[in-house]
């Protein structure tokens, strides 16, 4: 045991003119509540003993604090003395609380609700960051909607091989998504309506929507072609054809006649997807316009734009994360569930190109392995930023994203051999043999 006699350092103490009250010491020690103070004895106002019988070392920060407060030097020998036991500590860690809450939005309507869906999905409702169950239990797990198109489109081979035989028939395609791949939702993209593609009339597109609604009983998303001039007309007709089904109408954007789309969604009982391009202010502006048109908050989902891994994913991630944090802090303009077009991942050349166009690259390996992984990583990344609804394409990618997000969400029923895994044994894992 070592004793530091303050008396011996009287001169120094006087020079610094430090007056120490017990309360001051207590206050300092409070900051280090991780440390049990059984080895510190304070005798009156003249003496302080530091150290322990078993050679306990004090944290350098505490030593420093005491030093500056008391004007004493702790002999270095104490600090470097061998430690006999682990110093006790507790982790603590506070919970985060947010003021805001994300809107809960239900897509799909059953017969009791005026539609013909057998299932509905509800997304949103978050009061904390995604999967932060240690703060607040997440209310709804993210949902995956599998894409189908109203005409055969060019797809990377690993995707195409799953859909080849149904590409001519959107109804069959939708059915396959549900039956074979377990889709909770289906998105029908009416891309043939684009005047530069086939210029399919709106009325015909509406018929396709009816076919899909007939073919599957899950909620659906109705997507236009992305042509800002044609989409209002197409989506209006589709909304009418899907009256009462509470579809997600995708989408309204500031660069088009969003008013016409919003009004059609409102009139025929649908949810509207409010789409902006990596721009928080534009998203807020469009949402406010929608409020003005009388669109109820429970009928809005937002799409802040998805970019693929390696092709702007960082922008999309941060844009979504910022929106979600702003919403949780109380910005009601942004407090909506977020939809992400994860299929965009296939735009990355690494997802589909056979070899690297850059001659100095290491070998890229088979493209069939890269594509689905690009979709998975794009999906999980945006899920961690705040995504609630993922529009996806590759069945295995969708399955992996679902599985991971379900686990993080805390869904039960996962056969859990990993629970019994001695993870420290990874060092000696010899499965390679």
């Amino acid at each position: 045991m070592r004793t530091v006699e303050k008396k011996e350092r009287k001169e120094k103490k006087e020079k610094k003119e430090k007056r120490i009250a017990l309360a001051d010491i207590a206050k300092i020690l409070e900051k280090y509540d991780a440390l049990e103070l059984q080895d510190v004895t304070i005798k009156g106002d003249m003496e302080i003993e530091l150290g322990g019988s078993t050679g306990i070392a004090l944290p350098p920060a505490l030593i420093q604090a005491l030093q500056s407060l008391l004007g004493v030097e702790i002999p270095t020998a104490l600090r470097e003395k061998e430690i006999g036991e682990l110093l006790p500590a507790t982790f603590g860690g506070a919970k985060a609380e947010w003021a805001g809450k994300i809107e809960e939005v239900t897509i799909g309507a059953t017969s009791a609700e005026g539609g013909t869906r057998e299932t509905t999905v509800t997304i949103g409702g978050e009061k904390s960051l995604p999967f932060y169950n240690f703060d607040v239990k997440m209310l709804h797990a993210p949902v995956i909607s599998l894409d189908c198109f109203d005409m055969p489109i060019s797809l990377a081979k690993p995707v195409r091989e799953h859909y080849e035989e149904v590409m001519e028939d959107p109804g069959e395609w939708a059915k396959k998504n549900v039956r074979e791949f377990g889709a909770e939702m289906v998105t029908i993209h009416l891309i043939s309506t684009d005047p530069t593609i086939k210029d399919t009339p709106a009325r015909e597109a509406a018929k396709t929507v009816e076919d899909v609604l007939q073919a599957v009983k899950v909620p659906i998303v109705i997507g236009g072609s992305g042509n800002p001039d044609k989409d209002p007309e197409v989506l209006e007709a589709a909304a009418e054809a899907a009256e009462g089904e509470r579809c997600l109408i995708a989408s309204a954007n500031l660069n088009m006649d969003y008013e016409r789309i919003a009004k059609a969604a409102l009139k025929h009982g649908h949810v509207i997807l409010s789409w902006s391009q990596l721009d928080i202010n534009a998203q807020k502006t469009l949402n406010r316009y929608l409020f003005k048109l009388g669109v109820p908050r429970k009928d809005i989902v937002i799409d802040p734009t998805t970019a693929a891994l390696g092709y702007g994913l960082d922008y999309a991630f941060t844009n979504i994360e910022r929106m979600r944090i702003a919403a949780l802090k109380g910005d009601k303009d942004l407090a909506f569930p977020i939809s992400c077009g994860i299929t965009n991942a296939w735009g990355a050349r690494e997802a589909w190109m056979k070899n690297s166009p850059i001659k100095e690259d290491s070998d890229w390996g088979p493209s069939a392995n890269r594509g689905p992984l690009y979709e998975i990583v794009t999906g999980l990344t945006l899920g961690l930023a705040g995504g609630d609804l993922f529009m996806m394409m590759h069945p295995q990618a969708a399955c992996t994203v679902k599985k991971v997000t379900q686990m993080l969400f805390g869904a039960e029923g996962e056969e859990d051999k990993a629970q019994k895994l001695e993870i420290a044994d990874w060092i000696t894992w010899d499965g390679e043999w």
Partner: protein
Amino acid sequence: MEIWGYLPGTNCGECGEKTCLAFASLLKERKRKLELCTPLFEARYAEKRKRLAELLAPEIREIEIGVGARARKIGGEDVLYRHELTFFNRTALAHDVWDTMEAEALSERVKRITDWRKFYVGDFLTLDAIAIRSISGDAGRFAECVKDVAGKTDLPLVLCSFDAKVLEAGLKEIPDRNPLVYAADKTNWKEVLGLVKSYKVPVTLFSPDLDTLSSLALTFSSAGVTDIVLDPGSYPMGEGLAESFSRFIRIRRAAILEGNKVVAYPLMAVPLTAWMVYGAENAREASYWEAAIANLFIIKYVDIMILHSIEPHSLIAERTLVANIYTDPRRPVSVEPGLREIGTPTEHSPLFLTTNFALTYYTVESDISSNKIDSYLLVVDTEGIGVEAAVAGGQLNVELIKEALESYKVAQKVNHKTLVIPGLAARLSGETEDATGWTVLVGPRDSGRIPDWMNTNWPPKTGS
């Protein structure tokens, strides 16, 4: 501004800034080093300098592993969300080798990890470290393996065993390589503490129990060992995965938001545990699951991770994600619009159009230049939005193209009046021809295919 108060305040300009205030704000953003303020290193400013250094120290301790050109800094972070500032030291990816490998397989694997590279936005992505696992548990065998690996790579090394004797045998072989030791836990900590003190190397502390982990960290730091990495355990599945996820977040949050200095160290994850569930026989599934877990932990605060798959799909996806998350969000989204010359173009060279979104621009530029296609690249101002999104959003339109052709006087550079637009902008081709009088060719949807496209489409057929 607190930082400003500690600077000399003489506005001497030695640091390259006009005023101390300007320098202070750059210090705050970690865009300048304190050493640039040379007057501060005079004796009379010693106290201020010390305070300032403390003030500027990152919330999370920054440690270095390895030596030389490929040494890597990990940790040193200040924020929980990248938009608040930026993340600084990218997650180091350490791929494994093990001491029971055949010599030939070992050197092949070491070479692949060491040499791997992929071009991305103007530079090559590479891997960061090699983790050597002692499967044998035999000190001699481990030492031999460490020596062998160290001789074949300049990458930082991670020595992995819970047996201090095995670790020491490895350390003895490479005392000057500054390897990261893995790991001390609640049973072996005393021996490992002695070891890392005498070899002066960074050490990983392992415990999925956060009280025990805190206790280990407090003990090591109190003993003067502060080059610490914390591994709170990576369970690959189910509830265990959710709990691992929560531990990384809670530790980092406590360190950054709550000032808990005991755990303010870099974090390690081991996505390799995915392989313990799937087994080597299900390599594709295992590599996907490993990548998925790595994905979660790259985003949520892990500073170094140990991985098994060195298949190209894993490396490309994981390393690209690291590059994305650790890119400084303060860097400009766009490049200057204008007419660029790639190589040494003549009046017969092709003229390509692209947007001023930085990613698009660098991709197209590198595709053309890497394939040695002398050409002009017309970069139009789409407000930093990529081709597909800019066509959809109207930022890339016929008027803009027409204006760009005129204001950059493109017609004076080429003699063919032919413009190649991106395949993703195909829908603009007709209108553009009408509005500009130029012949518009639709290029490939991905600029990586420009070389193929050139073979069949350039020079353009004359006549119509």
